[in-house]
C-alpha cells in the first residue's frame, strides 16, 4: 500500500515526460516572423510560412504545424527584413578623389528552400552578400566623379548597385530591398586636411571681403553725407552770395582772431580802415 501509489506516480511521470517529448517533436509553433524548412534526413521536404508579397498577418502559414517526430528537423529562417552592413570601403572616383564609404543593404529571404540549399544558414547569406556589396559599390562609384556622389544622381547609383546585388542575392533566395550609403567621408589624413585648408582659406577670403565691403560702404556713407551737406549749404547760401561772403567772413574773423583763437594776435590798423572811419571825427 505504501509502494503502490509511488510506483503509480513514477509511471505517470514517465508517461507524461514521454508524451511531452513526443508532442514537442510533433507539434511546431511557427511564429509570424519566421519561415521554416522541414528537413527529413537532410532532405528538405516542406516549407512552412514562406514569405509572400502583400500577405496579411493572420492569414499566413504561421501557426501550429505537425511534423514526423524525430525524423523531421526544422530549419528556422527569419521572415523579416534584415540588414547587412558593409565594411568601410575606400572608393576612388574618376577624378582621383578618395572617399570612405559605409553602406548597408536590406534584404529579405523570399525563397527559404533555395536559401537552405545554397547557403545553409542566414549568417552565410549575409557573409556572402557583404563582399559583393563592397565590390559592386566600388565598381559603381569608381565610374563616377566625386561630385556625382553628392548630387541627386546618387539615387541612380544606388539603384544600379541594388540591381547588381539583387542578381547575386537571388541565388541565395534573398531579395534586396534597398542599398544605401550610410556615410561617405573624406579619409583621414591629407584629403581631410586639404579640405579643411580649403574651407579655412575660403572663410579667410570671405572675412577680408566683408571687411573691405564694410570699409567701402562706410566711405560711400561719408561721401553721401558730404554731398548732402554741400547741397544744404549751397541751397541756403546761394540765395545771396555777396551776403554769404560777408556773413562767413565775419564768422571767420571771429574764430580766427576771437577770444578763443590760439596764439597771440597783434593788429596794426591804418586810420583808413573802414572800422576807424568815424575815428577821425569827421
Amino acid at each position, binding site marked *: 500500500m505504501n509502494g503502490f501509489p509511488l510506483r503509480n506516480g513514477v509511471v505517470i511521470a514517465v508517461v507524461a515526460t514521454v508524451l511531452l517529448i513526443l508532442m514537442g517533436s510533433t507539434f511546431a509553433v511557427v511564429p509570424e516572423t519566421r519561415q521554416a524548412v522541414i528537413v527529413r534526413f537532410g532532405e528538405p521536404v516542406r516549407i512552412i510560412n514562406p514569405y509572400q508579397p502583400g500577405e496579411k498577418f493572420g492569414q499566413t502559414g504561421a501557426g501550429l504545424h505537425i511534423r514526423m517526430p524525430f525524423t523531421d528537423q526544422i530549419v528556422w529562417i527569419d521572415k523579416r*527584413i534584415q540588414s547587412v552592413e558593409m565594411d568601410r570601403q575606400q572608393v576612388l572616383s574618376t577624378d582621383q578623389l578618395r572617399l570612405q564609404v559605409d553602406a548597408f543593404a536590406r534584404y529579405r529571404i523570399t525563397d527559404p528552400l533555395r536559401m537552405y540549399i545554397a547557403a545553409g544558414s542566414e549568417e552565410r547569406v549575409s557573409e556572402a552578400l557583404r563582399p559583393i556589396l563592397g565590390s559592386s559599390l566600388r565598381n559603381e562609384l569608381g565610374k563616377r566623379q566625386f561630385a556625382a556622389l553628392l548630387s541627386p544622381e546618387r539615387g541612380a547609383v544606388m539603384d544600379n548597385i541594388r540591381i547588381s546585388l539583387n542578381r547575386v542575392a537571388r541565388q541565395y533566395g534573398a531579395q534586396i530591398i534597398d542599398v544605401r550609403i550610410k556615410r561617405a567621408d573624406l579619409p583621414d589624413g591629407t584629403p581631410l586636411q586639404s579640405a579643411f585648408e580649403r574651407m579655412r582659406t575660403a572663410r579667410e577670403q570671405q572675412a577680408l571681403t*566683408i571687411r573691405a565691403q564694410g570699409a567701402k560702404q562706410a566711405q560711400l556713407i561719408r561721401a553721401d553725407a558730404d554731398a548732402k551737406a554741400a547741397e544744404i549749404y549751397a541751397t541756403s547760401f546761394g540765395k545771396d552770395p555777396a551776403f554769404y561772403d560777408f556773413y562767413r567772413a565775419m564768422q571767420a*574773423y571771429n574764430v580766427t582772431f576771437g577770444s578763443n583763437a590760439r596764439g597771440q594776435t597783434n593788429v596794426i590798423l591804418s586810420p583808413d580802415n573802414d572800422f576807424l572811419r568815424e575815428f577821425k571825427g569827421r
Partner: protein
Amino acid sequence: MPGGGDRHSLWFWLAIGVATLWLATTSVHRIGPQERGIVTALGSFSRTLTPGIGLTLPAPLERVKVIDVEEIRTIDIGATGEGEKLMLTGDQNIIDLAYSVRWNIRSPEMYAFEIAEPEKTIGEVAESAMRAVVATVSLDDALGAGRTMIEQQVRERMQDILDRYNSGIRVQGIAIKQADPPAAVNDAFKEVSAAQQTAQTYRNEAQAYAQQLSAKAEGEAAAFDKVYAQYKLAPEVTRRRMYYETMEQILSGLDKTIIEAKGVTPYLPLPEVSRRAAQVPSVSSTQGAGQ
C-alpha cells in the same frame, strides 16, 4: 480514508488555485490607453487588443505582446561628446552635425513582424537620409537658414524609406541639435563673424559722421537763413551792425596799434612786438593806449 481524502482535496484545491492564477495572468490583459496588444494564437497573428481589459485564451495557446504606440521615442545621432560627426555638404565642405530622430509606432502589427532590428534600422535610415539631404545643400544653408528645410526633407525621406520596409513606424520629426563647422576650421569661421562686426563698426562710424555733418549743415544753413531774412529787411544797417559787432568783439581782446602817419610804410619789426607782448603778460596798458 479520511486522511487520504484530505490530502486529495488539498492537492485538488492547490491545482485549482494554480490553474486560476495561470488563467488570470495569461488570459486577462490590461492594455493601457497608449498601448496595443498583439495576440498570436500558436504563433499566428490573431487580433490586436485595444486599450481596456483584453481577454485571450491562456498561454501557450495565445500570447500577447504589448506595444506602446504613443510614446515618442528618440534616437540621438552624433550626440555631443562622442566625437565629431562630419558630413560632406553639396559644395564639398564639411559640417559637424548632431541631431535626434523622434518616432513612434503607427502600426503595431507591422512593427512586430516586419523589421528585424527596428531601432538600428531607424538609426541607419536616419543617417543615410541626413547625409543624402546635406549633400544637396550648401554649407552656409546647413549652418543657418536651411536647417528647418533639412529637418523637413530628412523626415520625409526617412518616412518614405521606412514605409517601403512596411515598418509601421512614423517619423515624428528630426531635430538638428548642433550644426557647426568642424573644430579644425572653427577659428576661420569666427574670423568671418569678427569681420562682420568690424564691417558693421565701420558703417556705424560712417553713419555717425554723416548724421553729425548733416546736423551741422542744417544748423548752419538755418542760422544763415534766419539772419538773411532779417538782412533782407534792412540790408545796409544790418550789414554795418554785424560788421561793427564782430570787429568790436575781435578787437576788444587784442593788442592794437594804429599808425596814423600818412605816407609811412606801415612796417614794424614784428619779432620785437611779439617779444614785448611775451614779456608783459598784462595787456591792459597797451589797451589803454589804444583807446
